[in-house]
């Protein structure tokens, strides 16, 4: 009786039907956690995908003057550090200085030396991250003192810099690209392989099913890390290898789930009805089995993306994943963990992104499961 309460007869005037998917979306929209998670996930994705283009820093640009800066809303360098920075730069050129003044974003300094100064020495100033465009504006004392003007280069490091002096925010963006890409692509790979393999095994059943699932069992028994090391030994380290390694392992779960669902679906009467109509096995698989598998598979997929992101971090943590200077969230967190005492922000910021993504994906997964199977509340 409860089904009449949950699904009242539809409005008879409308001729277009509402598919199960439409109803599921309707239900999903009522799930506040899932909706918020969707928004968060889209925001994080946009941040990672678009961010590096808008950022003023390249992910692999090293600022030697700004190593291990804590996060800050005001730009570097700070006014009071500029004179020291200038002195440091000129010390390297063995040149003295006086009259260091700053007005707005330009600086003016007088270089002094017992000998005439080669104007090319201004490149020592440019070499420091704080200053650029140093130009000689006046020559005094027969070249023994030069007046140099240039701009102060102000840099914003909202999330600080890492211990190599690279902007953490840009690295998080790029790392996010890698992590999300690995998550999505590896999930997609395992989805395609797993669903077709599992559906075929379940549908044909009998001996075929037996052989196919034993193959899965054999693959399961391969230790994952061992498998990855083997791949690395043979093919060398490669970004693509991560997809292959993760995809090759994760499709096994998907195949098992799909097979179980297929076995249940196969006994449903609409499949038997298709048999009775003379529909070929392949068409039944394509038209009846796989579309009905999608519900549980979609749910499993949303839970698989975080799992794969974690796996990638694990591989990168072991040094088998992405290579520096390219990074991923896993690598960033691993680096942050090494410096948790002197620079806690190095783990806090990547972890915030990582954890929010995982949370969002899990909430979406839960929401989808509820939306696709309303009786399961």
């Amino acid at each position: 009786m409860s089904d009449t309460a949950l699904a009242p007869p539809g409005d008879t005037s409308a001729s277009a039907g509402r598919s199960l998917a439409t109803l599921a979306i309707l239900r999903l929209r009522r799930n506040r956690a899932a909706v918020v998670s969707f928004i968060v996930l889209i925001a994080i994705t946009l941040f990672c995908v678009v961010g590096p283009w808008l950022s003023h820093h390249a992910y692999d640009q090293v600022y030697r003057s700004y190593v291990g800066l804590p996060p800050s809303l005001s730009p570097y360098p700070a006014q009071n550090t500029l004179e020291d920075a200038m002195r440091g730069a000129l010390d390297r050129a063995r040149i003295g200085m006086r009259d260091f003044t700053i007005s707005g974003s330009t600086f003016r300094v007088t270089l002094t030396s017992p000998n005439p100064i080669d104007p090319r020495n201004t490149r020592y100033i440019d070499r420091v991250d704080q200053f650029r465009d140093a130009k000689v504006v006046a020559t005094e004392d027969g070249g023994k003192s030069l007046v140099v003007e240039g701009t102060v280069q102000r840099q914003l490091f909202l999330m600080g810099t890492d211990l190599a002096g690279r902007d953490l925010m840009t690295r998080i963006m790029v790392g996010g690209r890698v992590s999300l890409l690995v998550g999505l692509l590896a999930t997609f790979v395992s989805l395609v392989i797993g669903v077709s393999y599992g559906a075929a095994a379940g549908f044909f059943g009998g001996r075929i099913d037996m052989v196919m699932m034993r193959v899965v069992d054999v693959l399961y028994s391969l230790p994952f890390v061992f498998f990855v090391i083997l791949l690395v030994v043979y093919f060398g380290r490669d970004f693509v290898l991560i997809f292959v390694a993760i995809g090759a392992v994760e499709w096994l779960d998907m195949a098992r789930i799909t097979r179980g669902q297929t076995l249940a679906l196969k006994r449903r009467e609409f499949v038997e009805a298709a048999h009775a109509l003379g529909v070929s096995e392949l068409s039944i698989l394509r038209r009846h089995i796989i579309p009905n598998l999608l519900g549980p598979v979609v749910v499993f997929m949303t839970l698989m993306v975080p799992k794969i992101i974690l796996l990638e971090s694990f591989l990168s943590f072991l040094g088998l994943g992405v290579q520096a200077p390219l990074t991923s969230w896993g690598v960033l967190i691993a680096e942050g963990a090494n410096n948790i005492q002197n620079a806690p922000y190095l783990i806090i910021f990547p972890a915030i992104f990582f954890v929010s993504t995982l949370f969002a994906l899990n909430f979406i997964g839960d929401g989808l499961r509820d939306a696709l199977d309303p009786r399961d509340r």
Partner: protein
Amino acid sequence: MVAQSLVPAERREAMNEDLKDPILAIRNLKVAFATYDGVVEAVKGIDIDIGAGETVAIVGESGSGKSQTMMATMGLLAANGQAQGSIRYRGEELLGLPPKALNRYRGKTIAMIFQEPMTSLDPLFKIERQLIEPLMAHSGLSRSAARARAIELLTKVEIPNPAERIDSYPHEMSGGQRQRVMIAMALANKPDVLIADEPTTALDVTVQAHILELLRGLQHEFGMAIVFITHDLGIVRRFADRTYVMRQGVVVEQGDTGELFTKPRDAYTKMLIEAEPAGRKAPVPPDSAIVLSAQGMRVTFRQRRGLFGTDVRTVEAVKGIDLTVRRGETIGIVGESGSGKSTLGRAILGLVPADGAVRYDGALIHPTDRHAMRPLRRHLQLVFQDPYGSLSPRLTAGEIVTEGLLVHEPGISRAERDRRAAGAFEEVWLDPATRHRFPHEFSGGQRQRIAIARTMILKPTLVVLDEPTSALDRSVQKSIVELLRHLQTKYGLAYLFISHDLAVVRALSDEILVMKQGAVVERGTVDTIFTNARESYTRELIAAAFLDNPDGRSFT
């Protein structure tokens, strides 16, 4: 909580004048469900009285709110349900009580048994444990005393060897026995009111009759009131003292059962009473061509047991059956569940591996290989019992109906397929405009019509109908029976009609095969079987179907 009744007090009293002191009084009960399409009112302000020791039936079709009324009484509404009004048990208000307070009544003075005995028992525990736990909880008995009482209860519900059966698991019992265990559980605390929600619908007709007899006997012994929620008027007529007829959440008629059946006032009640499939099939001309013949159909299932599957057991589901179907003829196959009637139908269509020879139009089609069988499938079709399970939920009704065309006429265009789908919808009396909807948007009867349209679009010559009306309400059944008749006369279809419902079989068949444990125990024309059955099994089936009308109304 208690809303003002919309029915004037004096009229309410008039309605219940013969019932001075009801033990369960439902007043102006409203049940509403919050769904994604807004609030749906399942029950719209009804009054029901249950007197001590009487049997009251609440009849109505699915969706009439009859079950929700009693679910509200038991505080078992779904989470999105909301009940308003008043439900009083011996003067005490039940509605709005917190679950803890409600548990003083639930299972103790008011007990309930459900439709599905297969799922109401926990498969993990022995029935002993499931029986004694409520006894220990409610009456504070010791374990051994509770066990003794449980055995006593099982004796009361006529379970053979109760002292041994108490240690079995639910899966070791038949459906009827499980329902008896459920009744024993309900009786454990000697309730005043027993609510039985379609207690026999899931059971075979003969088992159904035994369970009803048992309930009647127990009622005498315990002096409790029984509320029967059912759509089966045969049960109502035999067992209920008073009857409420519900439709769309409203009580349309109530009164003494005998009076209600002889002089129904409401048009809906009349329709329900007359919904029993009537009429007979016109005989087939004797020179009609043989469409299909099957000789020595035998189906054997092999079950592997043991650690390595070495212990092979064989179960013969169909034990060598011959049958012949002529053009325009209907063969009814009746029997209880497990008698092999569905397997026989599938074996003839080559859907389960079987021994024997099947000839279609004179040509041998079984044994043959699958590929050779495929083009013949369009002539030999199958309609299933469950219209909810037999339609793929992800395809639109139009796609479902035209699926066979993709196989058998792959050349035709999409537009042509759509046009034929519309035609097939009209053929089964459905609005062609609804063909873009999905199966879950149709009612059970409409879905069954879609399933029929799916077969009719291929212009078959023989259709195997596997319990096509069993999952449907009586009035819907009637229209499906009419549709099947109409299609048969229009196209000269041959039917193999598999059913346990003898009323429908009688209305549709020329010849009847009675099956028991895989073998035909009796076969003959409809008249011989119904008036002059040889086998006691056949007579038992007929008796259990309540076809004989006490008022002598005959089917012509």
